[in-house]
């Protein structure tokens, strides 16, 4: 368990979280390499299907990072994304899988340090939860 390095997928809005990731890079801030970033035009594009597919394919954790509430470039994309994340949390709970493996975060493009902090926070959380039971079974 000590050597467990989780696979985490981060769906990031290009107007905020993805730009914040760029900023984190420019600021030479390090964050865990466990996080694989997928750029979206808006978190409103993310679908329940994408989040479940990541879990089914063996991701140990998945998160969506969108603009601060009230500041979505497309007005409500981040609020819709939050509802989809909540749906997936309920689905995982129904299946006996920790809902904390999926999360919604909000940040602005100026928050490079916060992006790195979120990546560390999520990696720490998933390391504590351990490997996804879906992944374990798939490997077995």
């Amino acid at each position, binding site marked *: 368990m000590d050597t467990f390095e989780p696979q985490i997928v981060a769906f990031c809005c290009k107007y905020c979280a993805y730009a914040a990731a760029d900023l984190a890079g420019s600021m030479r801030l390090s964050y865990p390499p466990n996080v694989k970033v997928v750029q979206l035009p808006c978190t409103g594009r993310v679908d329940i299907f994408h989040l479940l597919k990541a879990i*089914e394919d063996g991701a140990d954790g998945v998160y969506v990072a969108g603009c601060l509430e009230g500041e979505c470039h497309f007005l409500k994309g981040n609020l819709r994304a939050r509802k989809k994340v909540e749906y997936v949390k309920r689905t995982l709970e*129904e299946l006996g899988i920790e809902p904390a493996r999926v999360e919604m975060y909000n940040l602005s493009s100026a928050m490079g340090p916060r992006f790195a902090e979120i990546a560390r926070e999520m990696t720490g959380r998933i390391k504590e939860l351990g490997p996804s039971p879906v992944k374990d*079974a798939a490997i077995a």
Partner: protein
Amino acid sequence: MIVGDRKSLAEILDMIKDCQNILITGCKGCVTVCNVGGLKEVQILALSLKIARKKEGRPITIEENLLERQCDPEYIAELADVVHNYDAVLSMACGVGPQFLAEAYPAQKFFPAINTKFFGGATGHGVWEERCAGCGTCVIHNYDGLCPVSRCSKSLMNGPCGGSAGGLCEISKDVVCIWDMIVKKKMEQGRLEDLLRVMPAKDWSTSRDGGPRKSIREELSQ
């Protein structure tokens, strides 16, 4: 449209517990419109079931399909070549779908993934409400477009009853008293005297009380 809710994953997983290979078939009709059994919902259910079975260490193969309608034999026939390739088939249509499928393919097992609830419409994003009970003898013209058969808890033809308070029905604070709305609308339109006429007891033989129903139109039958 016909409105339904998806069954719980636990119930669906129990139905298919002995299966290794299933087909999930959705419907492009009412259940697509009410976001319970269309393409996206088929994909989401398939993923949820795959996750559950991988977790159990018993992966399952699931194929996804979407029929134009599951309430017409001509579309049901599209599955003829593949329907027996699976241990079972999950239908995400209303209650009509699994029955039409079972009638067409008696050797296969069909399970309903949807609880069919009512005839209704969307009153907001993600909210559907009952508007018709399919009683077979429409009377909404007598009530200014507000149906007491489907929307009054007691289906009263002459109301309101003593359980109406503050515009709400006594059964729940979330249920509007339709008779309160009927009276208010009649008052607004200056036609309150319409309600002095006592409506006769409804003939329920055209509803479920008359047994299973059938509609035949000679001009269309072949």
